[in-house]
């Protein structure tokens, strides 16, 4: 084996085996070129505005919800800072995207997700201000929408509740990182092969490594959801009544 090859394998294993390499997968500050920062920001804007209007509408009919929604945002933030035990030994952080989308509905989750991402950038140094648009799109728009749609579809197909929750959380998590890979591939197309070649690279690094973590998150979400269903029946019932697009639609 030539030195070149040895070095290559060494670097490859270093990248793959680096502990914690899979945690905090928001695109960091300064990583995206300005064009893409602005584009993804503009792309997420309509969803955020939609979410804001939906929240303010629900709030007018039930002012108690403002406090509840803020508490939900704080809950998502705290959840994302917890360490998730993972099969590979490295630890990761749950995104909470699936749980939030099922409990509060995808539109409310967009606004909450944006706030959580901003706070993560400022308070925890995960993510960034210029990449806020891109991260919002992957984590607060696509993730919740996919999770919510999956939940509804699986329930409609007559499958058990746990399976719906599991698939919603796992797919919501996974799709978030697929979108992140797509965003990175758009920003850094390969010289030969362009976008497609670059996408394969980024998918391999950011999405494939995420599969075990998506499964972990799915399992955890099922456990949390079951526990909430068992011990927090009244709260769930209230949620169902109060959030349009939340659980009431899913039932």
């Amino acid at each position, binding site marked *: 084996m030539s030195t070149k090859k040895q070095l290559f394998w060494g670097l490859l294993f270093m990248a793959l085996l680096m502990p914690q390499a899979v*945690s905090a997968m928001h695109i960091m500050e300064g990583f995206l070129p300005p064009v893409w920062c602005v584009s993804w920001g503009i792309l997420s804007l309509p969803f955020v505005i939609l979410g804001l209007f939906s929240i303010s509408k629900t709030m007018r009919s039930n002012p108690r919800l403002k*406090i509840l929604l803020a508490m939900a*945002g704080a809950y998502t933030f705290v959840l994302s800072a917890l360490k998730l035990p993972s099969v590979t030994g490295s630890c990761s952080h749950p995104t909470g995207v699936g749980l939030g989308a099922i409990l509060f509905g995808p539109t409310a989750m967009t*606004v909450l997700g944006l706030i959580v991402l901003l706070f993560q950038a400022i308070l925890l*140094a995960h993510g960034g201000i210029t990449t806020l648009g891109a991260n919002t799109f992957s984590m607060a728009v696509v993730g919740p929408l996919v999770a919510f749609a999956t939940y509804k579809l699986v329930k409609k197909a007559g499958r058990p509740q746990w399976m719906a929750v599991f698939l919603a959380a796992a797919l919501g998590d996974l799709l978030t990182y697929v979108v992140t890979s797509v965003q990175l591939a758009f920003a850094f197309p390969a010289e030969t092969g362009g976008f497609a*070649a670059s996408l394969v690279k980024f998918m391999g690094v950011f999405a494939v490594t995420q599969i075990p973590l998506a499964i972990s998150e799915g399992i955890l979400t099922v456990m949390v959801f079951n*526990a909430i269903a068992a011990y927090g029946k009244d709260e769930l019932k209230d949620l169902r009544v109060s959030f349009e697009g939340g659980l009431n639609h899913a039932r």
Partner: protein
Amino acid sequence: MIHIDRYAYRSKLKKTDPMQKLFFAVLTLGMCLWADSNVISAAVLVLMGGITVFRGGTSLYFLMKLLAIPMSFLLVGVLTVAVKISEDPGIMLVSLPMAGVWVGISQQGLRDAGRLFLKALGSVTCLYYLSLSTPLVDMLSAFKRIGVPKLMVEMMGLVYRFIFVLFETAETIFNSQNSRLGYASLNSGYRSLGGLASTLFIRAYRRSDELYTALEARGYDGELNVLEEPYQRHWAGYFAPLAVNIILIVITLFLRQYEGGRLG
């Protein structure tokens, strides 16, 4: 739990008008992204880091520790950018044949990756300057003045205040679980974390309910009004960042012309 917040409150720059700090940070950040040059990125890194440490009084050690947080993402991301697929192994520094093509790292790729690395570090220092000198409450008042929707700012304020309450609850639960070997194995780890997350949710829900009742009893009408602390405002606060950035832009343009001339 949240150290950055604590440092922000202790910063010597805390009393400065948050609008000025936001203006400085965002302007420099945008400039750093636009310039996309090693020299400028390094200059921004030193400048913003220097201001944070010397003017703000944050310890250099803590700033270094913060810079290490995004390092895992940065290294993985930069390496992925550096790896190229090509049919010609000649351009590669290190490469490996894979299904008829060569996968490896070229000199150009390495140079791009290095520039991206420095640029990201420079920009992240701008973010740290802001978050280490401006407590979130001050930042929210600046957001309000820029024209972010009122509902959004209010939600942010509420979320910010609840975070600490929930963090404390989560930490207490985690400690008691951990001291009873709740995280000793993977299985029990899952069970414990599931318990933690669900209990936290139910607690958060009840707490928000109680809070609303308490607020309503005190005449809450849908708005929480708090007094703002007075800030030091002076037009020079806008002038200095502007001057610094103009100088950096001029340097960038000069460098570009120089490099362009050399290449052409």
